[in-house]
């Protein structure tokens, strides 16, 4: 399953954190720092996977993608396919891109609540809900409409 979804910038500042297993807040920060330490030492043309068994549990892996100033990171266990998760990150980012029209770090900082909404339509309880970006878009747009209809 997917144990956590994190978005952090290249300075290690968390921009979105979502844990699907119970982790106390101090431990969450510890994990985030450890992940940043791993990612910041990795080069551009390295593979998109890194071992996380010392970070969040045995057989855990980081599957991540680097976009401009941001890392999108999924912490997954051995039951997930690494490449499929990579595709999922792509879907997540493409969806954000459509919603924010060329998403950038500031969009995510100031609209973390919307990003949570988007993520909830893609991943739920550590499992994939929807992989089809158009469907996700539609669900999210419906929600935004409802939100405005105060």
């Amino acid at each position, binding site marked *: 399953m997917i144990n956590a979804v994190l978005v952090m910038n290249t300075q290690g500042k968390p921009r979105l954190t979502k844990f699907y297993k119970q982790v106390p*807040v101090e431990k969450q920060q510890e994990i985030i720092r450890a992940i940043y330490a791993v990612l910041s030492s990795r*080069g551009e043309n390295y593979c998109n996977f890194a071992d996380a068994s010392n970070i969040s549990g045995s057989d855990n892996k980081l599957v991540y993608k680097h976009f401009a100033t941001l890392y999108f990171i999924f912490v997954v266990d051995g039951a997930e396919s*690494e490449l499929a998760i990579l595709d999922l990150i792509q879907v997540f980012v493409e969806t954000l891109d459509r919603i924010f029209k060329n998403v950038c770090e500031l969009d995510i900082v100031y609209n973390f609540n919307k990003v949570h909404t988007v993520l909830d339509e893609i991943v739920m*309880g550590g499992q994939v809900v929807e*992989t089809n970006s158009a469907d996700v878009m539609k669900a999210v747009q419906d929600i935004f409409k409802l939100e405005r209809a105060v």
Partner: protein
Amino acid sequence: MALSGMRGLSVFISDVRNCQNKELERLRVDKELANVRTKFKHEKGLTPYEKKKYVWKMLYIYMLGYDVDFGHMETIALISAPKYAEKQVGYIVTSCLLNENHDFLRLVINTVRNDIIGRNETFQCLALTMVGNVGGKEFSESLAPDVQKLLISSSCRPLVRKKAALCLLRLYRKNPDVVNVDGWSDRMAQLLDERDIGVVTAVMSLLVSLVANNPDGYWNCVSKCVRLLERLTRSQDIPQEYTYYGIPSPWLQVKTMRVLQYFPSIEDPNIRRSLLEVLQRILMGTDVVKNVNKNNASHAVLFEALSLVMHLDAEKDMMSQCVALLGKFIAVREPNIRYLGLENMTRMLLVADVQESIKRHQAQIITSLKDPDISIRRRSLDLLYGMCDVSNAKDIVEELLQYLTTADFAIREELALKAAILAEKFAPDLSWYVDVILQLIEKAGDFVSDDIWYRVVQFVTNNEDLQAYSAAKARDYLDKPAVHETMVKVAGYLLGEYSHLLARRPGCSPREIFSIIHDKFPSVTTSTKAILLSSYTKILMHSQPGDPELLKQVLSVFKKFETYLDAEVQQRAVEYFALIQKGPSMVDIMAEMPKFPERQSALIKKAEDTDGDAADLSATKLRLQQQTSNAVVLVNQHSANGTSHLAPLSKVSSGSQNIDRGVLEQSHVGPQQNGMPVTAVGMAQSPNADLLGDLMAPLAIEAAPGSVPATQTSASLVPEEPSLGGSADPLALALLDGLSSSVQPTGSIQDWFNALCKKDSGVLYEDSFIQIGIKAEWRGSQGHVVIFLGNMQKVALTSVRATVLPPSHLRMQLLPVPETIPPRAQVQCPLDVLSLHASREVPVLDFSYSNSTVTVGSKLRLPVVMNKFLQPAPISPADFVTIWRTLSGPPNKLQEVVHGVKPMPLPEMKELFNSFHINVSPGLDPNLNNIVAATTFFSESGATLCLVRVETDPADRTQLRLTVASTDSSTTFELKEYIKEQLVDMSSITTTLPTNPATLGFTGPAAGLAGLL
């Protein structure tokens, strides 16, 4: 850039972003928290907008890493709001902030249920998402039937149904009974026929979990999965929006193939044939293309297909096709594909007979060992390790050694361990093995654990042919200018034992050997010094007829260390000095080391441990694990009479019966323990050298290892042999199991606890099913304890529970343990400890598990004792006196006369203090019968220097006067009581055990029966 739509929130985020440093950020956050708190507390009529704004702020602060311990009620209350916008915030923030055990969740169960069964789809989605993210037993009990209904209802929108599927999955994980419904597997099969790909994907995730736990219940889904896979690969009837870069829903393809791997095997010939056809098509039809995303997606499918082919144990042709593909992948530039190629090749090795074809790619794999990306290097190392056998061991190990010098630190330890294990498993000849290990120590001494050099010593001791060779090698290494301390240890040891075999060679006279070793003496630590002192004695003994010059030099070393600070070194120096005076009778005492009893390599055990997996295992993984557990276990041919030496390293492939007793125990076999007499101070004084001679004489030693435990030395040779203090014999245990199905620990829980109080790793508990080990690191007021739960049987242990009951002076955090420990697997549960203030209380680990027949539970004291938070405080006499004077009288300085102390010689008591990190400062007190010591106690509030003075009475060793002083009265009191307990407590254990013949005699089945009656 779009703003969040809430001005106050945006302003706050801007403020935080503008903070120059962490400190300012904290101030800003604290201010905001105070603000939100007051708003919630005092202002009654907050508008919905304000409520939303504050709750979002709380989530933002939480994501920044600050604990938000209020406002939960307000968050939860939003869930019950009528408007969508408020409800949505309530649901999202609740699922981030609250965990499943939060009491408040109970308050909203009704609202959540109403949302789920209500007609508003958007509310249904919100509620399902929150429950799916949070889980929880109570949700599970009260909501499961409703969630089920949504999933199977054809009138619901797909959006709701896919969320219901995943929600049910979460509830199922908490409570498997939620799908305990008649005909549920038929329902699942029907759901696989759904037209909406999104719903099927979610159902497939649910099915993975269901099948993983109960493959027999869902056979009816196999054919559906295969048909679905056919449909997907042929792109039949797949809506355009579900093709991702031209590939029909890669996720669904991957998940479907994953499900099929959880079924033990697929017997039906027709289904199997069509499945293999589909897989064949995937294997053939995937090419590497330019577009990265397309590549990722197509290869996600391809790699899953490879896994499934392996799982199905397909025909040989198909397997070789897989190897060929993997061979292609490990050579491509694209790093992801290369990484997965290496990883899958490693898995392939374990499930199929493809060793030979993989070997053809050895050169390519070695190239990846030098890749800049550590993820790839790791995979390559794993693969090389897995593919190594007698034929290529030399090449591979030499590559590893060469790489070791340039490898980065992150991988060195693993590399060193793996090289050592391969050298041991597949050595074409033993001298090569010794060469490899010595090179390993030379190149990466810091990363060579003690286990590794203990193992060399064991091999050399048990193989006469190796002894002269190793001694010569050791001499050469030691002669180099800069030598790693581990090298000094192993070389010193080997030369002590075997340098006499070289005596005729140039530069190898006893005196020259001594001087080569002694050159290193000043720069090594005390534990090495102790080993070297033993070596000197042995060298001296072998120089018969005596070399007066050597004798003089050695004696002067011993003389010098008679008063050495470290008790072990001091004791050795004193004893050896006395022994040497005995002249020829020393030969008996210092005879060559006996052969070691054969046992499984601690290294291999260690490697197996590091491979340990968590609870969530795929079927292929499970199979792998079962296979690795009876993979190569190095067992040396045991000879009962101890005459034949170690058989060549042999490969025994079904060693799984033989339960490993853990690394910890094995590490006891270090030559130190087996080495020199560590018995009693009394030995040197004792006129009865015959007893000693008998014990240590060659004759006694040559006896079968099995008979040794009968003699008294056994206690020190094999300290962990559970023969003392009412502990049951393993045999008796087996009988007991059959009789009453009660499970008894294999040793004394008290002894294990006591041992762990003084060291940081070891066994806490063991019975025939489970072994609980502890490994701890302490730094100031903090501790990081890892609890290892090892299943020693071939059956999974279920309902595993472990909770810690912390006393009030400690803050502890134990991550939840997995409910099931797979057969022969080990799980690690980290436990973080923070000391708040001084106290003698200890936390209790409450654990239980079920094996197939019975539930076993126990409450174990955890060795988080006060001395773990102590650190020796070196202090100058002047400082000591000054501080001692300023702390006058109670409550900061407390004095007590302690009676009933275990009589022990002063050095032993000093050692006891040192072992608790209470640093004895010798010579500070003019009265030689007194001990003065200092230590620092660490707690959350800082470090407290504590001073201790013990005044003993040489005429009556059972009483003493104890004074403890520190700036904190409660620390003073607790430390005084703690020391008192140790001084008195020790006596009751050590004096009662040996003098109680009744308990000693009662081992074996009789003891078990007696225990029953």
